[in-house]
């Protein structure tokens, strides 16, 4: 994976940490994610997807 600042190609601005709503299996919660401060385009890293997000998904599937 590349390093450095992640930029929204549409708006040409760097992403900033912004609260974002995620939902699954009838539950929802807000977390801070890198997002474009103009259009809201989000980035979720593979590390997060395979780690905490996977855990949360599995917990919610059993609720």
């Amino acid at each position, binding site marked *: *994976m*590349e*390093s*450095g*600042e*992640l*930029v*929204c*190609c*549409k708006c040409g601005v760097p*992403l900033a940490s*912004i*609260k*974002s*709503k*995620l*939902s*699954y*299996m009838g539950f*929802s919660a807000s977390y801070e994610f890198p*997002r*474009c*401060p*103009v*259009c*809201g*385009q*989000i*980035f*979720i890293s*593979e590390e997060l*997807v*395979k780690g905490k*997000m*996977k855990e*949360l*998904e*599995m917990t919610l*599937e*059993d*609720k």
Partner: protein
Amino acid sequence: MRASDIAALRQQCTRGGPLPCTAACPLNVDVRAFIEKIKQGDIQKARLIYERAVLFPRIVAALCPAPCEAFCRSALKIRALESFCFSEPSGEHVGRMPARNKKVAVVDGGLSGLACALRLSEHGWGVELFSSGERPGGGIWELLPQELILSDFAVLDKSRIVVRNNAGCQNPEDFDYVYLPHEDVSIGGIRNGLRDAEAIEKALKLGDQPKFDSAAAIAARIMPPPEVFDLAEATAEAQKCRGCKCNDCIRNCVMMQYFGRTPEKLFVDVGGTLGVVKGVSKRIAQKQIFSCNLCGLCDCPAGIDFQKMFADSRRAIFETGRMPQAYHQFWMEDMEHAMSENAFLALGGPAGYMFFPGCQLGASRPEYVTAAYGILKKELGEVSLLLACCGAPAYWAGNVKAEQELAARLSEVWRDMGHPKVVTACPSCGKQLAKMCPEWECVSLYEILANSPFAEKGQGMQVAVFDPCAAKEMQEVKESVRKIARRSGFSLMPSPRENCCGNGGHMRAVAPELFDQIAESSAFSSKEDAITYCVNCRDIFASRGKRAIHILDLFCEGSPENAFCRPAPSWGERRRNRELLKAGLTDMPAPHGAIKLLISGELMAKLQNELLTEQEILNTIQSCESSGDKLSYAGSDVYIGHMRQGAITIWVEYRVLDGGYELRNAYSHRMIIAEGVPDGVR
């Protein structure tokens, strides 16, 4: 399926107790051990096991209604085996433990008293048997031939029992225990006697006073003679015994082992999951319910059908709408593809036979279907062809509506084709169609191919046939495949027990680590190269580096060596193969070349594992490109973007090439992102 149904299943579980055949036996014969000895040809040992339990084997064989047979999963003729063993007088087994210093008066000359006296005597207690008649046995002399009774009673002469005929016990004070009569002329009497003997022993050892129960006697009745076996027939019959063990479900089920669940715990957890109370309890067995591969190999001796329990539980959860769609999306989409305009095909008109190769056979290698179809037409004359999905993914998902709709669509074709016999290639299709389209008469492709000419390709090579889980009850199919392999010149080594390759039941999406474990253990369950007749097994084995061919490779062009080395096709290739197959059989144009998408081998393996298709990747990239919704690191030509597709969000990292794309990475998640401009952003 409700929590209460699970509780009922729990009652059936015999774990921790005797097997159902033994539990059903009034005399607690260890039926499995008895049959096992006959299986081994050791009739002497078999007789000993039986004789020790029943004491009077020929009398019991004549009277016993064999309730064990009703509980035998192999439908063995157990009574006939008993009769075979005792067609000649018994071995006159006499147990002789060292003499003890206490004496029992048995004042009962009937079967009950005789059994009690004999067992006590075997265990070393001094016994005097008082019979009111001229000889012990009571009413049994009126029921059975004298010769038969005498041969069983010969054991009394060899025992240490003192028999006093025409006598009562005049001096009870001389004895440590006095056993009074039961008036049963039946094996119920023997049972009572044995039970009483145990109770008396306990009393004698502990100084306790036993209480006699009055268990209902089993009515004395001579049973009609059973089938008469000779040694070869008896041994062949015994071979049918599965040798049930009450931990078979755990032993045979990698899922139970993986989650560390005993059946007792599963019943509790599945019941709790179906009766979940929102906010109070959890769907504690959700993962187990949805990761069962529905292979049916659990083989419970008590007849508990775990496969049905899990399938019905899925249906119940599906109906509540609480089933995670991501568990089944991939396979339901695959089913949709097989039933789509691009792949579905009903070819030909009314005919005696219709070939139903299943949607995965042509997806793996289109030639499997065309070669087999060509042979079928030569062998059977007019044969129609139906390229479709058998509906297994809908069954796996618990989606009854989708299963019914598919059944209706397939049945309409079948009716249009003139109610033909259906030739199936895939054992899983055979199993699914038997459930879903019970009016179809199905025959396995391999039973037909076993008698048709084909090239010799084996050249003495040693291989092992791998039987897929769905073929468990398909004995003729198993034999046909072996016949084909042998005739083709392969040398067959012992096969591993039939097993699941992990493909069934959507396990991959629910418990990928469990899938890995099952796939790996099945692929390498034999050290020899494998011949399979389930193409999913073949491709999963190939994906793990196991050399494996499908039996239909022997009917296709090319050397077996090439077939053994053929890699498993990717998800995208599978769908494209289906389309190519249809195009080859019709005037439909072949699918045009997709936009170039470069994917490294390592990354392709990752996509395979994560159930991501090349088409989904391309959709995501194209969506990013057309909308401009993509990210990149400053100065890099790698773009990052995502797209929600059904129940998953797919992320791609890619480069734009001339006329296509290069995929650098991809991953997916199930959680839904609230897209658009979030609150607080200008």
